[in-house]
């Protein structure tokens, strides 16, 4: 892809990232961190791509390990965040 296009996406995403969390209350720091943590588990997509085109056993083995780790990160992250937030349920006015 065009380097300029990538740079534009990157810079704009930085500002969106700054903006969306700029007003978070300290109560939600932990769930927000945990949710953001789960989102970077989407590296799973990258792990699947490299597993697909791996040609040697070493490449395949390492990418399988990457898939396992990324799945733990993504799925575990979303589940644990949901559990944290579940406890806030029913206490909102």
């Amino acid at each position, binding site marked *: 892809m065009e380097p300029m296009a990538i740079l534009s996406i990157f810079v704009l995403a930085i500002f969106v990232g700054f903006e969306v969390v700029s007003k978070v209350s300290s109560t939600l720091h*932990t769930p927000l961190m945990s949710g953001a943590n789960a989102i970077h588990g989407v*590296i799973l997509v990258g792990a699947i791509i490299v*597993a697909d085109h791996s040609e040697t056993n070493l490449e395949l083995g390492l*990418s399988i390990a990457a898939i396992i780790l990324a799945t*733990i990160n993504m799925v575990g992250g979303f589940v644990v965040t949901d559990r944290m937030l579940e406890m806030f349920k029913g206490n909102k006015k």
Partner: protein
Amino acid sequence: MSRTLYDLIGLAAGVAFILALKGLSHPKTARRGNLIGAFGATLATLVVFFYANPGSSLPLNHLGFILGAIAIGLLVGVPAARKVQMTQMPQLVALFNGVGGGAAALVAIVEYLHLGAEATTAEVIFTVFTVIVGCVSFSGSIITFMKLQELMTTRPVIFPAGRFIIAATLVSVIGVGGWVVNALGTAPLLILAGLSLLFGILFVLPVGGADVPIVISLLNAFTGLTVAASGYVLDSVLLIIAGTLVGASGTILTRKMAEAMGRSLFGTLFGAFTAKAQDSSGAAEDRPVKSGSPDDVAILLNYARRVVIVPGFGLAVAQAQHTVRELADLMISKGIDVAYGIHPVAGRMPGHMNVLLAEANVPYDQLLEMDEVNPTFGQTDVAIVIGANDVVNPAAQTTPGCPIYGMPILEVNNAANIIFLKRSMRPGFAGIENELLYDPKTMLLFGDAKASLTKVVSALKAL
């Protein structure tokens, strides 16, 4: 599936992540935000099975291995997340972040092996970045996990000439990184990975217990950036968007946490380079303290008009959130004005106490944030500090140079009486002596928080 459709679905997942972070920033929408994020991630994962890269045909190569690996990940991740106790959630988040960083580093290594000499310089630079930061995030998170799980000391680990060793490691990491970019080859890359893992360990070791949450948040942002860099190498816009979002929001979050704790982010970041052994004020442990019985505490509470409960990590450890609510309800039924004073970083993570008390269905309006509750301590008859220490330590205001100096505290020292429920005279997570324990208006009730509170509740009922 056409490339356009694949990219559009990727874009939809990217938008889902933005909405997820936005939702997670507000109490009312937080849970839905998390679900939107999970939806986006699932969508992105499913669609890659139909379009891995241009020219590949269905099904994916090594499909069995890929599905098997996902199944293993699910079998490990889901039960871990479901069964973990509230007290152990912070270290689980640290661990999940670490494995994410490890995954990003592995992806970069595989792609490097795969591209070989075909890799462009830009791709190699991004690969080197991902390997370094992913490995640092991985080993650093493992150390934070061990600190929080108390598998190792929670105090800063400082060794002679530590800062020179850390600086030397960092210089070698950068040097080897440059070598990989210039020379290419598998061996230099593996050396780079090894050195980066070592640097991650050395980087986190000198961090004191109280700063660990900030470091987790920082490593979380790091991992986000590695995902963005992987997105460049793998030509995936989705990974660039998702990784950058996490990197940027994680940086802001880290800064906010540092502010809530009165730390400079810079100081925490480079604490490794400036750390020096602290002079501990010894002899303090021999001074007399006033300890009381549950009956003494109950009597004190019975005659109070206003009581503020200050929970800390000890409450979480003892799983005493339901018992403390029972005590609060009992006091309210006796006409006592009861509030909880919540320090933003009480426990092991920001918001830890809110989550814990919410689990016990403590009414939201009884939870007062630090700014709200501090002015009221002057009119408070009794402040009950349950398993908290550093967040009420006046040394943060009075002793320049102590590790928590400058951190905003709950000013329980302004209350007429202070009750500390503690397991022992051991100092708090930050390892600093608390003068308040020796104050004449302080009464100590030793023991497990839940057991102590249960006794206080029955004593108060009997009055």
